[in-house]
């Protein structure tokens, strides 16, 4: 894990965050003044119905977007004040992402997909391979590394995506509906993997979900509705 900023500050903090999207020429509010802090090592669920703003907030935490108003901080650094290249570097080295639709690169094998974050970070081939194989073993897919995504089941694909998100030992993983496309059995396995990683690494896990089964297992649940935080249960 790498962390260049102050270890005393919360890992993520949102202060008065406002974000609009445009639907044609009409601005649609996605977040309306959100304040939220996520500490290091915490496991937090962003809960709410579709359109509540949980994915938008997750994107802002991940530096995939910047707020229209307010500030989103990562380890004390204002992501909105950074250049696109600096945000890209932060995503590459300090964050991991898990998506609802897995988002694996179809032309790469499972092992190559897991190697990818190390590859773009300039890690040497031998080290890359060693860590990718370890990450695949950790998600129970040591024997499936040579398969392309279309040769894997949905649950396997998501486990490859988790291995990809964890292989470079990020400060935090941001998971957007990670069980949304899985049956309950595979959904549980995926959640098990993420929670086990959190326990073992002490890193932060933020999960956007509306799945009650997932919410029931996460210690902190921040509820959003219509772009505002309406509850924070611990």
């Amino acid at each position, binding site marked *: 894990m790498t962390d260049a900023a102050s270890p005393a500050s919360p890992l993520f903090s949102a202060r008065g965050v406002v974000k609009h999207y445009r639907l044609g020429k009409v601005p649609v509010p996605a977040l309306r003044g959100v304040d939220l802090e996520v500490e290091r090592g915490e496991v937090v669920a962003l809960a709410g119905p579709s359109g509540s703003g949980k994915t938008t907030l997750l994107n802002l935490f991940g530096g995939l977007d910047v707020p229209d108003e307010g500030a989103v901080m990562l380890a004390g650094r204002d992501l909105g004040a950074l250049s696109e290249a600096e945000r890209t570097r932060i995503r590459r080295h300090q964050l991991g992402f898990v998506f609802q639709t897995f988002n694996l690169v179809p032309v790469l094998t499972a092992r*190559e997909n897991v190697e990818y974050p190390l590859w773009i970070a300039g890690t040497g081939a031998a080290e890359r391979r060693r860590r990718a194989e370890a990450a695949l073993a950790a998600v129970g897919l040591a024997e499936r590394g040579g398969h392309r995504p279309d040769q894997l089941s949905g649950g396997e694909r998501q486990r490859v995506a988790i291995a990809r998100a964890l292989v470079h030992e990020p400060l935090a993983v941001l998971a957007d509906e990670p069980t949304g496309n899985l049956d309950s059995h595979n959904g549980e396995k995926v959640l098990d993997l993420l929670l086990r990683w959190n326990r073992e690494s002490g890193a932060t896990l933020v999960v956007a979900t509306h799945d009650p089964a997932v919410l029931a297992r996460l210690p902190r649940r921040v509820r959003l509705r219509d772009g505002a935080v309406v509850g924070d249960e611990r």
Partner: protein
Amino acid sequence: MRWALMALRNLARNGRRTFISLLVVGTGTAALVLTAGFILFNFRGLEGALVHGGLAHLEVADAAAAAPGQLDRPVTDALADWQALRARLQSLPEVAAAGANVHLMGVASTPAGKSASFVAVGAEPDREKAMGFNTRLRAGAVLPAAPPAEGDDAALLARGLAASLGAKPGDVVTLLALTPDGSLNALDVRVAGVLTTGVQDLDTRFVKLHLATAQRLLQSTGVSDLLVMLREGVPLDAGKRAVARAVAAHRPALAVVDWKARAPFYDQVKNLYLGIFWFLGTVILVLVVLSASNTLLMAVLERTRELGTLRAIGTSRAQLAAIVLLEALWLGLLGGALGCLLGWGATLLINASHLQMPPPPGAVEPIDVELALVPAAFAGTVALMLVVLAVAAVVPIARATRLRVAEALTAV
């Protein structure tokens, strides 16, 4: 895992579209290779025709008469020692053969009363043979190598001139010319044969004589110039320098003129061909750019979510641009290789077909359609295709690198 391998796999995702793009690039490459082969063959053919048709590689002439643009070569006192000079040139290691020429003009007439103006070259047949000159004889025989005895002079008439005089081999023609001291002299010559120069206009007035016959007609022992043929493989510039060194001390001063300076139309023809090549080439390249750009852009648009994911997990814009650029370069390389294969096969087929084109303006004989197989032209065309494909990738790269990551992740 390498960027190039990933790019290659991306191309394979939509095999049919990639195949069509490869065909476009390949056809464009083949067209360029074939055009280049045709033009290069013509350049070589024209060079060979000029050098072996009478110009040789180099000419040594009176410096006063050989100013740039001045092509007339009267008999000159500057070359009074031409035999010694020819021997010196012949001894140079760069030189294959050297020979003397006399240039003259006058009026030819027959006993039947027909007459026509002529231009003539008096040459040494044995030296011309050593220089590899071609005499395109259409009737009769070539001139004998030995200097003819007085009263035994012969001439080769170009076929247009022979026709206008009504002369055939064995007939006698009277040549009338102005000598260097300004008086008129006439000489009866036997028509040994009829030739063609290959140039329609020249065929109406050209006469070929033995050097001794030309000197007898001009009542002179001088020559107009010396021609030098270089050994095979000796670069023209190097040969020219060697010959220039050998005649540097000669007085009066002599000039060494290469064949290109004596055939200014060679560069004109070359520039015309190159102009046509680049015009056709530009049209072909524009079509290739548009087609490849469309293919690459569609590939980028179809992969919006995937490219957004790559950006989300830390791929820089430069790295994303490299992926798209490498896909373009693969198209260029594979399409170029395909085109070279097509071009090579078509070249062999065309050369084996012995096709002919009608004579070009001013020429008297049809041209063989042959294409040169020049590896450098193939390599250069593939390199050009790589550049063209890189240009075709500009818009797709701009599109890929300007994606808004959060929006791209929601693309369907």
